[in-house]
């Protein structure tokens, strides 16, 4: 009997136990890996092992496996998707372009690796994510000035790039010393798309073309406009990583030593492992995922939150912000969190001070304009999930008895009235009883 009772009480808890991806635990946990060939599992094992050692549950499937699917009974089976299948023309099972876009639209993460001869399907997924791969199927990124020096690689398509995005949250705080090896196709970003970012770009001397054929027209992609690896953070905080090279994830590139042309230093290991491990941490929300809680505001010197403020009140505002570290919520430390006191436009915009333990606070005077205001925190920083908090609060003018009462400038008037009254009193007595 009691066991049954325990069981019944546990039933509502079941969804909590099974769906590990939540606001409280934003890292993706179950990841579907679609491969062209299962042998990639072994040839790219260092990358996969680094994911598995961080607690991800990888499910390897062939891209044309007829049994694969992203969701069942209206629930997503996976929190993340890795597409290491550049040549796949059609996915098996119920997965297609629309299913993948829907997967991302519902806030899940995606890693796409294309390669030379990337299929139209992979290109389309990339296009929908905001990047355009070079349309020439035989084109590779070539760079005659910053290639990786090699005894056996002569065509300069093996590129050593160290032009990373400058962002600690995306690439980790440790500097990547060795250049990253890249061999594959380049892509360009749509300048009007503000969600997609170039993480690794080509050098100014790079261009994208078929190394085997002569160039008669200028290539469509040249110079630093070529992006080698890009990331997208959608408005729903879903994250996407797009790379033009599958081999940059391979063990061979991870272990390879690298020397950039024209540079005397030879690195024992390429930067690929660090670069991609850090980047995958970002993609799977182990870094740069913020949450805000405990938004509080009150009049200076009080503790309770009022329902209304009066113009010119002094108020104090505070909010707590935490960053997900992959295992727990850590206090987020920054000096650029700002709060706005907003009605149609910000009346007050103030930097918040922090105690370095996650709490952000400030104090300011309510403007002498009444109406319905909002406390707004719009925190959008490179690589971080965006925070958008707003809390509505009305502001009223002074009441009639809240104005200043005894103004010195009015004393002559008061004096005149009271002297008049005194005079009147004396005059009545004198007038009535004087003989």
């Amino acid at each position, binding site marked *: 009997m009691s066991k049954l009772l325990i069981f019944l009480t546990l039933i509502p808890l079941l969804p909590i136990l099974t769906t590990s991806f939540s606001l409280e635990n934003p890292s993706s946990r179950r990841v579907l890996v679609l491969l062209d060939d299962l042998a990639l599992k072994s040839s790219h094992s260092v990358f996969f092992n680094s994911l598995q050692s961080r607690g991800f549950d990888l499910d390897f499937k062939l891209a044309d496996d007829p049994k694969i699917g992203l969701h069942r009974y209206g629930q997503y089976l996976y929190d993340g998707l890795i597409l290491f299948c550049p040549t796949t023309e059609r996915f098996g099972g119920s997965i297609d372009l629309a299913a993948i876009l829907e997967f991302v639209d519902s806030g899940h993460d995606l890693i796409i690796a294309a390669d030379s001869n990337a299929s139209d399907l992979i290109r389309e997924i990339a296009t929908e994510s905001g990047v355009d791969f070079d349309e020439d199927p035989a084109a590779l990124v070539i760079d005659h000035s910053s290639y990786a020096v090699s005894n056996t690689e002569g065509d300069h398509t093996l590129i050593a790039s160290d032009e990373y995005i400058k962002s600690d949250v995306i690439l980790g705080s440790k500097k990547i010393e060795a250049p990253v090896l890249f061999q594959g196709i380049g892509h360009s970003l749509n300048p009007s798309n503000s969600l997609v970012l170039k993480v690794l770009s080509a050098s100014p001397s790079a261009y994208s073309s078929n190394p085997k054929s002569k160039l008669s027209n200028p290539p469509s992609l040249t110079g630093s406009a070529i992006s080698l690896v890009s990331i997208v953070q959608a408005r729903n905080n879903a994250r996407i990583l797009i790379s033009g090279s599958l081999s940059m994830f391979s063990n061979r590139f991870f272990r390879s030593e690298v020397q950039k042309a024209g540079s005397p230093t030879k690195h024992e290991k390429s930067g690929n492992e660090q670069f991609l491990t850090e980047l995958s941490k970002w993609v799977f929300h182990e870094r740069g995922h913020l949450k805000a809680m405990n938004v509080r505001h009150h009049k200076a010197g009080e503790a309770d939150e009022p329902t209304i403020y009066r113009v*010119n009140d002094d108020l104090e505002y505070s909010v707590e912000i935490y960053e997900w570290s992959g295992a727990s919520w850590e206090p987020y430390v920054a000096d650029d969190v700002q709060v706005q006191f907003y009605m149609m436009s910000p009346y007050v915009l103030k930097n918040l001070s922090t105690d370095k333990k996650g709490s952000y606070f400030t104090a300011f005077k309510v403007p002498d304009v009444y109406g319905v205001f909002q406390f707004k925190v719009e925190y959008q920083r490179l690589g971080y999930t965006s925070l958008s908090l707003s809390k509505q609060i009305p502001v009223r003018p002074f009441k009639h008895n809240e104005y200043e009462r005894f103004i010195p400038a009015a004393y002559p008037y008061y004096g005149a009235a009271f002297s008049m009254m005194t005079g009147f009193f004396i005059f009545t007595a004198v007038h009535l009883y004087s003989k």
Partner: protein
Amino acid sequence: MGMARNLGGFLVLFLAISICEAASIFQPISDSHRSAALELFSPTDGSFGSLEETYEALRTFEVLGIKKRPDISATSCQSVSETLGSSTSSLKDVFHALKVNSVLKCKVNDETFQGVAKRLKAVLNDASSLLDFYYSIGSLVLIKDQNSEVDVLRDADGIFRSIKALSQSDGRWRYSSNNPESSTYAAGLALEALAGTVSLASSEIDQSLIVTLKNDIVKLFDSIEKYDDGSFYFDEKLVDAREHQGPLSTTSSVVRGFTAFASVTSGSINVPGDKILGLAKFFLGIGIPGNSKDFFNQIDSLACLENNRVSVPLILSLPATVLSLTKKDQLKVKVNTVLGSSAPPLTVKLVRAFISGTKDSSVIESLELKFDPETAVHFLDVLPKSVDVGNYKFVFEIVLHDSEDKNVYATGGQTQVPVFVTGLIKIDNAEIAVLDSDHGSVETQKKLDLAGENAVSLSANHLQKLRLSFLLATPRGNIFKPHQAFLKLRHETKVEHIFVVGNSGKQFEIILDFLGLVEKFFYLSGRYDIELTVGDAVMENSFLRAVGHVELDLPEAPEKAPRPPPLAVDPSSRYGPKAEITHIFRAPEKRPPQELSLAFLGLTLLPLVGFLIGLLRIGVNLKNFPTSAVPATFALLFHLGIAAVLLLYVLFWLKLDLFITLKALCFLGTFLMFVGHRILSHLASTSAKLKSA
């Protein structure tokens, strides 16, 4: 369908691994494999996990000759003796325990071996599935190797026949008689089991059986599959997702079985040497696998191939395929066995070399490479004069000195290797000029030094042309045509235009006629920075050089002119914090200083003072105050009432609100009216009496 998918996929892997389709370069096993092996096979808590994994690790270390391997003999030997001692341990475990023992040489006493051997023979007598045969025969062979006292198989012919009964006409095997599906992987296991049967047999096996089996092997090798780069592999024909082994383990199983069988039989097996070389290339082409199973399969199979009796593959490899003419790099070729040991005496011939893409014109014909016995490298001192910078295909051939060796080694005939010959390119006659459009006369002309810095400053209008020209020559003095020769003009607003610099005969030249480019330039006048990029895979001094700038004066844009494309925005500018905003409060009204107010307060009190002084002057008195008690009381009350009303006004000013004031005033007024009427009528009657009197 599944097959094709798998093949395609594996091809991709291949391309990914052997970077850049360096089609026919296969490097033998080297030290990078050794360090990877130590990384892959690292024991946890003093063991590698199961006995199978332990054997894989030990075998890999043994083949690679790694001496400094982790010490796991204590725990492993214990589990070996436990497995062998127990009568309930599975066949597979026994097999792997014996394999581990074959490497570790644990102390296992003879009785244990005898007991296991007895058990295995019992299993063998009523075995029906291939795996039973494989494990029990394999185990018996291992026992025989480790302890010679175990007696041999009596009914070897019978067992041979019953294993053979599972074979199919195409050289594949079934796992058991009631399983109709045949498998290539099983064929490898069967061959290994059969080889074991032969070695265990007390008497010679029926030769006709051996001959048919040899034919089966030939049939099996007919189904071998091939990649474009000359490597061969086996794969399952029927793909059942569960049992599917993958090309690597399938090929590895066949190689193991085939080499084991070849080593126990005499006489030739009709398998061509290039297929065996192709198999070796397949294993080498994988590079360094990332999981231990694949790694073991690769190394173990290569070890089998290294010592096989049919033909030993020799791998021709080039330490460098990028050779610099300027640095006078030597062409070096190494020939090794798959595991990197030295080859028998031989000569490497450079049969021919041709520029890739053009099959017909060869630049080298038949050259013999010298051999340096110290470094075991075949080399060519200087590249012949006919070889200029470029992208070549070199064709090599291995010629064995000893004709006996030709039967032992597989050299694979001719090997084609792509070679890049690089060099410093001379740049001459670089100049930039502004021309007048109509008569082509030169307006300004400047020399450029493309090896150093330039800061040319030019100006032109839309009726003029810009000409840039230079000459490129190879170290051998020929004209050089680079793959990349771009001229880039970048406007102040970061709008870029790229032109390919073409060549006319010797000269590289580009003429920009601004009249035709006005629209392309979006009518944007102003400063354009000029950048020249020249690069090629074989050009050692590829460069990207800022040449200078040109001040362009273009006509005003007509209304319907195309707009310049939107430019990429620097992401960091999009995200920074905003400037702080502080509200500006309404300034309070201006007020006079307090002293002034007080002074005026004093002034307003002056009339009262004057009034009081005046009253004293005229000598006021209160003689008219009623003397009798009742009017005096009313008079007193009347004046107190007036005082109270005035006090009420003061209170109203100080703190009371209008409602309380009016209420109080109501009572006071009524009271005042009453007492006022009484005292005033009293005073009136008194004064009337006085008048009448």
